[in-house]
C-alpha cells in the first residue's frame, strides 16, 4: 500500500491511497485503502489521512475519520491524536501506520509495527525519508 497527504499554499488538504492488498488474498477482498473514512480521508476543517496495514481493523474502527473527528472536536492536537490512535489500533490487532497533515504544522507519520516506508518535505522543501524506527 502507498499513500500521500498534502496541504497547498491556500490551506487546501488532500489524501490519496493505492494498494494491491496483501499476498494471496482471496479475490474480491477489499481492504481499507479505497474505503473513505477508513484508509483515506480529507477535510480542510481537520486533516488529511492515508493509512496502511491490517485493512479489516482500519475499516471497522473507521481509522482516518476517527482521527479527523478527534482533531475537529478539539480533543487532541494532530500529533497526539495520531500517536494515541495508532497505539489503540495496534492493541486491537490493527498493525500498520498512518500519515496525516493538518491546516498548519508539519506532517505526522506514525506506525505501530517494525517499520514503514515513509517520507515528508519540510517547509524549505528538504526531503526526509525513512524505513525502520
Amino acid at each position, binding site marked *: *500500500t*502507498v499513500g*500521500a*497527504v*498534502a*496541504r*497547498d499554499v*491556500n*490551506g*487546501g*488538504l*488532500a*489524501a*490519496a*491511497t*493505492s*494498494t*494491491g*492488498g*496483501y*499476498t*494471496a*488474498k482471496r*479475490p*474480491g477482498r*477489499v*481492504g481499507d*485503502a*479505497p474505503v*473513505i473514512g477508513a*484508509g*483515506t*480521508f480529507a*477535510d480542510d476543517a481537520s486533516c*488529511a489521512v*492515508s493509512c*496502511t*496495514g491490517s485493512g479489516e481493523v482500519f475499516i471497522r474502527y473507521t481509522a482516518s475519520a476517527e482521527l479527523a473527528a478527534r482533531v475537529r472536536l478539539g480533543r487532541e492536537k494532530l500529533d497526539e491524536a495520531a500517536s494515541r490512535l495508532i497505539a489503540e489500533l495496534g492493541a486491537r490487532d490493527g*498493525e500498520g*501506520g*498512518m*500519515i496525516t*497533515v493538518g491546516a*498548519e*504544522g508539519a*506532517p505526522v507519520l506514525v506506525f505501530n*509495527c*517494525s*517499520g*514503514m*516506508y*515513509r*517520507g*515528508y*518535505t519540510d*517547509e524549505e*522543501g528538504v*526531503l526526509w*525519508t525513512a*524505513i525502520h524506527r
Partner: protein
Amino acid sequence: MTKTLPALAIHGGAGTVPAHQLDNESRAAYHEGLRTALRAGWKLLHAGAPALDAVMAAVKALEDDTLFNAGRGAVLTSAGRPEMDAAIMRGSDRAAGAVAGICGPRNPVEAARLVMEQSGHVLMMGKGAEAFLREVGMEFLPASYFETARRRAALELELARRASGAPDIRTDADRHG
C-alpha cells in the same frame, strides 16, 4: 487569502523488510523511490498547485515503482493476478473517488480521480468500474504489466505454506507486500 506553508508526506506501506534483511543496495533503492515521489508532489505544491494534484502525482510515482505494493509491483491474489484498490479525497468539499478490485489502469489513483470527477459516484468496483474507465478513455494494460517475479515468488511461497498447513511465519513484507 493568506498563504499557508505547503506540506507533503508519503508512505510506501507498513510491511517493511526487516532491517537485517535489507542490504544497502535495496535500502538505497527504497529511499530513492520515496524521494522520487516526494519530488513529484513537492514540485506541484511549490508551484502553487492544489493539494489534490500533489497527492496524485506522489502516489502515481509510487505506483510506477515496482518496489511498492501498488500499481506496477502490486501483490497477487490467491488466484494469481493483481486486484487493485485506490482512493483520493479533497478536503475543501470532501469530494472523493475510489476504485476497488480493478486491473488495467496503469495508475489506479488516476482511476479513482476519474470516478470522483466524472462518474457522479464515490466508490466503483470490479467490472463495472473497468467499463466506466474504458468509457472515459482510460488506457488499460495487461495483468502482466503489473506482475513482478518477486511478487510471484511471494505468492508461490504462501500457497505452498497453506497447502502444507504450516503456521504463517511470514514477515510483514511478505504478508502485506
